[in-house]
């Protein structure tokens, strides 16, 4: 097997995990947790390992999951995503710190260009550049990559990797580190603390990963980025 082919096969294994993690962190930051979601994390030790403080939190033994959700997690979610922090890219990137909810939002333009449509009412957010939406967008791109890998569509793979890298670089990594550091500091439960930590670490690592893959498989395009 050539190194190139080996890497492709590896990517096929890795993509499922990328999909899972993007799904996990986007879901965590978009809507309040429910019992099913928490069960899904808890039943997979590897996922649970990403939430070490949560895993060891004594309160989980004292209270039922629904009590934890109502009395702790939802309170923290409201604090982090609705009240005190502003989880929108335009807030961090515009000089006037206004949330750009209309068609002039570059993130929205990007979604549109790629024929993706955000259902804001379902997402219950005011703008498409919400962290949860952007992370779910990466999840969608990874799902698309998975299909391209399965179809062995090399051009498609490169194009998707390129889009992913650009989106990470120009959008997510432009502002989420600051937001996630704030979220970590402001969080009042281990669930969101660990979740913010996980998202931050993962995004940084994923950017390196995508860059590396691009350089391995799609050299010409990768170098034009900078």
């Amino acid at each position, binding site marked *: 097997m050539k190194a190139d082919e080996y890497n492709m096969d590896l990517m096929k*294994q*890795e993509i*499922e*995990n990328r*999909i*899972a*993690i*993007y*799904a*996990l962190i*986007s*879901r965590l930051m*978009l*809507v309040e947790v429910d019992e099913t*979601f928490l069960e*899904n*994390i808890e*039943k*997979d030790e*590897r*996922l649970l390992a*990403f939430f*070490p*403080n949560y895993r060891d939190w004594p309160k989980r033994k004292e209270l039922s999951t629904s009590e934890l959700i109502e009395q702790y997690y939802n309170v923290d979610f409201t604090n982090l995503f609705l009240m005190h922090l502003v989880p929108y890219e335009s807030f961090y990137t515009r000089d006037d710190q206004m949330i*750009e*909810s*209309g*068609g*002039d939002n570059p993130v*929205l*333009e990007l*979604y*549109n260009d790629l*024929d*993706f*449509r*955000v*259902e*804001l*009412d*379902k*997402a219950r957010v005011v703008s498409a550049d919400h962290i*949860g*939406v952007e992370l*779910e*967008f990466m*999840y*969608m791109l*990874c*799902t698309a990559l998975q299909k391209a890998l399965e179809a062995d569509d090399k051009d498609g793979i490169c194009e998707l990797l390129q889009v992913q890298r650009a989106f990470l670089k120009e959008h997510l990594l432009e502002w989420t580190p600051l937001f996630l550091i704030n979220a*970590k*500091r402001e*969080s009042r439960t*281990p669930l969101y*603390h*660990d979740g913010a*930590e996980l998202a931050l670490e993962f995004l940084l*690592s*994923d950017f390196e*990963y995508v860059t590396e893959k691009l350089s391995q498989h799609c050299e010409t395009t990768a170098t034009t980025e900078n």
Partner: protein
Amino acid sequence: MTKSMNNENPAFLEGRRSFLKGTAYSVAGATLAAGVFKTVADTPAMAETKFTPTPKTLSFYPPLEEWNSFTELDGDDWKRGGTSRNGVQSEDNPDGIKATEYMLVPTACSNCEASCGLTAWVDLSTYKAGGQLAVRKYMGNPLHAGSRGRNCAKGYAAQSQMYDPDRIPFPLKRAPGSKRGEGKWVRTTWDEAMKEIGQKMHDTLKVGDEMSKKSIMYHVGRPNENGFGHRVPHSLGIDGYDSHTNICSAGARQGTIQWTNDDRNSPDWSNAKLIFLQSSHAADAGHYFQQAAGRIADARKKGAKLVVMDPRMSNSAGMADLWVPCWPGTETALYLYLANRILNEKGLNGEDLVNHNFVKNWVNWDHLMKDREYLAYLVEKKYIKSVPAGDTYEEFIEMIAEMYSPYTLDFVAEECRIEKRIVEKLYDMFIDAGARVATYIWRAGPIGHKGGWMIARSAFLPFVLRGAMAGDKGGVGLHHWHVISVNGKGNAATEAGVAPGKVDAWNEIAWPPEYPLSSYEMSHIMPHLLMDDEWRAKWNAKGLNVPEKLAVWIPRMYNPVWINPDGFRWIEALKREDKIEMSFNLSPTWSETNWYCDFILPVGLAGERHDQHSEATQPSRWLSFRNPALRVALEKMGWKPKDPTRATLEAHIKAGLGEVWEEVEFWANIMTHYVDPDGSLGVRKYWASKEDPTRCVTIPEWYQAAFDNLPNLKKAAKASYPDSKYPNYEMMRDRGTWLEEDNIFKPQERPLKKVGENYIAHGHEYHESEVVKDEFGVLTATDAHGKEEAIGIEIDGEFVEGFHTLTKKLDFYCEWFKEWKWPEYAIPIYPTTKEDRVKMTHIVTQVHHDFMQKDNEFALNTVFRLPYNIHTRSVNSKHLMEISQNHNPVWIYTEDAKKLGIKRGDAVKVTITDTVSGLDSGYFIAMAVPTEGTMPGVLACSHHAGRWKLKNAVEIPGFEHKLGIMGVGAPLYEMTMDGKVGTLKPTEGLNEGMQARKDTWQFKEYNKDLDNIWWDGLSGSWQNAVAPSHPDPIAGNHAWHQKVIMELAGKDDKIGDIYVNYENNMKVYQAWRDDLTRPLDSTDTLRRPKHIKRPCVPLSDKAYAVNIK
């Protein structure tokens, strides 16, 4: 997070690199993801690019050229992501974002007097799809020079007022056989009403004698138009106009008239260094709230300071640089203290603080110094020690420096009950601002007190001395410089072609002989005068011909029963069909007064009528043009009315608003076809159209002619609409506002206009040979009617226009006031001892602290407006009532409350007692709120709340629905009255009343939330009914403030209860009238000085002449 959650956990960090390694997670991503994306684009991304999903600035506004058709995305749809995702809604794309095509019709707010520009957003999409034509929202008008696109809460409320679930849908008539106040109504039509009313007016006028000219009274609440209302009685040839001014601002106007012979002052807020507010009015709620507040904010942004003098910590006072809580009614002392220091002290560099350049040229000191007899009188009164030897300016300054020296810091601190440090700070700020001090002397003091006018009179003195009254930048100018009044001047469109002639009668009901100097009509005592047989007999015996009744009384957007003092006396008079034979209210909403009228004729609100309206809000002359939005929209879409003289009414019926009309078309129609159908009374020609005398004038004809009086407007209209027959009208219809002249400063210094050998002044030409200059430099000329007029003045060798007074200067010494029996008050003055306060009672407030002897005796401050409420019209605006809830507690200083054992929320009994007659009026039960926001000894409770109704709804025979009455704004009460005592008791909150009929039949789409009226409206009480009328002996205004006794309410008392001894109230009014006035007597030959304004009907010399036996 706690430290136990270690961020440096090495295992975790190691894990960082292992996100993707190893086997897959057991949970698939799809199970975890929220799934907010759709990947298939099933709609076009951007159908059109004309939308502005997120305007770049808050002040974004559609450009004027798009006003006839502007498409906007639906506000409710933003959550779905805009057109980018869903495209625009259409038949092919039903899930797209709704985009509504609007026509923006400019109009002006009609709620308060400021006349801020509005645009009515008329929904064309729904209409074109077969739905009803409706206004979806009201926004600002960015073209408006005064309001600059901005509005307060009341402006946007025009929408909820328009589609009020209890809107009066058609004209109503008191049911035949029922009595006034029984609340039985039948439906009538405008034509039936006009026929019956027109006949009554016709029959009254046909008699043609003097009394017939005094028997119809047009009583105007909120004019909000410049002069149209005046024309109504004027064209009828009657002296029949009553304004609401004497419960509003007549006190301030009196003080201003004495100085300037102008109606009011007009500040330049924007350029001031010190904003000096007496009361919260200008910046909190009233003249001219939103515009004044914006200009004040502009000035503060540039560094101006704000001082608010008010016993109550208002919104303005709360954000001021200095709050000056002064005992109500003693403000005069404080102003004279400022004058004293300006006259007797020097500036930091040893310079005089008096602006001699201004005072010497522009104050009538020379007239005073020549009047040696009067100077001797001042010595006799002990105002000065001796008559100055000479008559020079320097001696004048020296004399008044002595005259005002008793107004010391010690005196003012004692008299005004104010801390010395605040007084001194105020003085420093006043001096620091130089001549750039702007003020608007209007509400509060001048309308609250006996002698309130002297507060205004004295207030201007320090401004004059500092040169701030020169009408220059950042200072104070005058009203008539900055206002446009052409609404009643469409004469050229009428068959007559000219204004009606002067009227030959003097109506004692509006202008009783006790009040020859009253600033405006004495309308607040109209029912008292009508019912005072003794008074009438007295004057008839002296040779007058006083009306004993009115044939027709016409309130217009007015609710005197509720807003005037002594409401039970009003009800008593209105119920008397022998005193008021017929009455009809031109009223956009239900009101307490409507209940006692014979007809209720529904007229339009802000976007449902025509008016030209202008106010002096800044040193420029702008106007608003009010448009009926639905009519304009229909006409622009090609609709034509059957009768062009009734287009507004027809349009409102077509658009489902109801049979709502407007005054301009109504009056033109009733006059032409019903009051004087054959022209025999000489009235018809003033309303019949010149183009077609068989009908009355149309709106385009009237306003084309009216606006012809404005040269700049006329020129611009001609240029913009070259092919139009009515360019003036069309331009104003399309823009809604016009700036005729900007930056008007110091017009008194303008050279007197001269063309050839003729001087031009006040619209007349005078040959130079006829112009005479007197010893003071005043230029007088005699006009064609033999009337001598002061037309200008010589200043520094130049002939200039001067001020509007007889002396053409500012009258420090008001000579005519001396001649009209009040010599002791012909200059700004105030008593300094208790003994003098008794002698000079006419200028000492009825709530002076001299009268407060016990811990539970207080001055009640009633004159402040609530920012979100406006008299009557806002009562059923959901939007505004949700904010106000009819809530109106009594503010009491915390220490006072402690002494009386009163806590927040306690029901308290407030008994009103009069300090002139010594009589009690009764009490109202209210809610107490102890606060540091009112000064010790002074309670505060606005007289702008306490609405009530006696029925929740009325049934109209033959009409399927009940008509609701003030359902969201006035709770239900039970009333008793027996001619002497009246009571009111709350029986049901308005939330309860509304629950019973939450499924309204009218304007359902706008009123889906009536089940959510959560406020009961039961925390205010109708204090106005308890208050007796206090006619000021000189200015004639009602002096609003009351001496009250406060105690905890009894266990059977409920907040909202009132008990009124209105028999006593009649005696209180009589005491004020008989003990305090100086009526006309046999020495008088005139009813009133001819040179001061005598609103609003021009009268002949014959009418002015009087002979008292």
